[in-house]
């Protein structure tokens, strides 16, 4: 039995996939998180690019919203895991799913690279007159990666 088959056969996961209501409810929670916390990611990046929230310091923007993004990210990963493992055999063959997972990996790489030089140095950034190039690169890459995430997420449904 393959890994994906054994995952699917776990009791509560197969009950889950068979239920008419539970799957859409979990998917709705997944998407609600995108709406609530995706907006925060976007606004933080727009602030880094100097496009909005100009009277709010970068420090405030990053530190105030960070706990909420963590909560949102955790719920998103938890619900995403439920969705993917309940139909593991389908997802295992789905190229859009794997592209999405690669992008997710790249989002973590983005965090490792830019946290120490951008997101954890906001006070320094608030003092500088112009927005440094590394900040713009971090913000634009984040926007591109997250756009890729939800696009691939949606396209998963189109692979047969």
């Amino acid at each position, binding site marked *: 039995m393959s890994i994906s088959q054994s995952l699917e056969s776990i009791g509560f996961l197969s009950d889950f996939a068979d239920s*008419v209501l539970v*799957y*859409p*409810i979990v*998917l*709705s929670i997944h*998407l*609600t998180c*995108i*709406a*609530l*916390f*995706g*907006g*925060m990611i*976007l*606004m933080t990046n*727009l602030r880094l690019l100097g496009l*909005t*929230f*100009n*009277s*709010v310091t970068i420090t*405030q*923007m990053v530190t*105030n*919203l960070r706990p*909420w993004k963590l909560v949102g990210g955790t719920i998103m990963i938890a619900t995403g895991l439920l969705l993917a493992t309940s139909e593991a055999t389908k997802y295992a063959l789905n190229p859009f799913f794997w592209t999405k997972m690669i992008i997710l990996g790249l989002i973590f790489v983005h965090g490792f690279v830019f946290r120490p030089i951008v997101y954890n140095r906001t006070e320094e950034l608030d003092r500088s007159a112009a927005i440094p190039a590394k900040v713009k690169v971090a913000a634009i890459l984040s926007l591109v990666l997250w*756009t890729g995430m*939800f*696009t691939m*997420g*949606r*396209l998963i449904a*189109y692979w047969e």
Partner: protein
Amino acid sequence: MLLQNTFVDALNDAEWVFPLAECVHIGGFAIGVGSIALVDFRMLNLGLRQETTARILRYTELWTIVALIFVLFSGATLFLSQTHIYLINQIFPIKMYILLAALIYNFTIHRKVATMENPPPALSKVVAIMSLLLWVLVVFGGIFTGFLE
């Protein structure tokens, strides 16, 4: 009538239109609802506390409106490309009523209280919770339209 329109035919013929419109729809509501949620979070005293609610509303409002326009247009595209399915769907009209309520609420009561000089904290909280609830219900309505008939 709608189904005989050439624009609608073109939508039905192009396989990529529906998924593309869905992606715009999702990206749009992430920005639209997400920016409204930032105002709500402030009203609930949960985020960006150093700023006034009115100011956060001013920063986010344009993004909200532009994003919601994208959501409405992509939504209309989805509807027109599968009109027959949506018209017999039992969840879809419920979603539309909630959406209408959410839109009206957002630009009337929600806006009014968010721009008040010193609103009673309890009022702000109730208004914010109501706003979040309405938008979350719209998202649930959208997913359930796809899953139930």
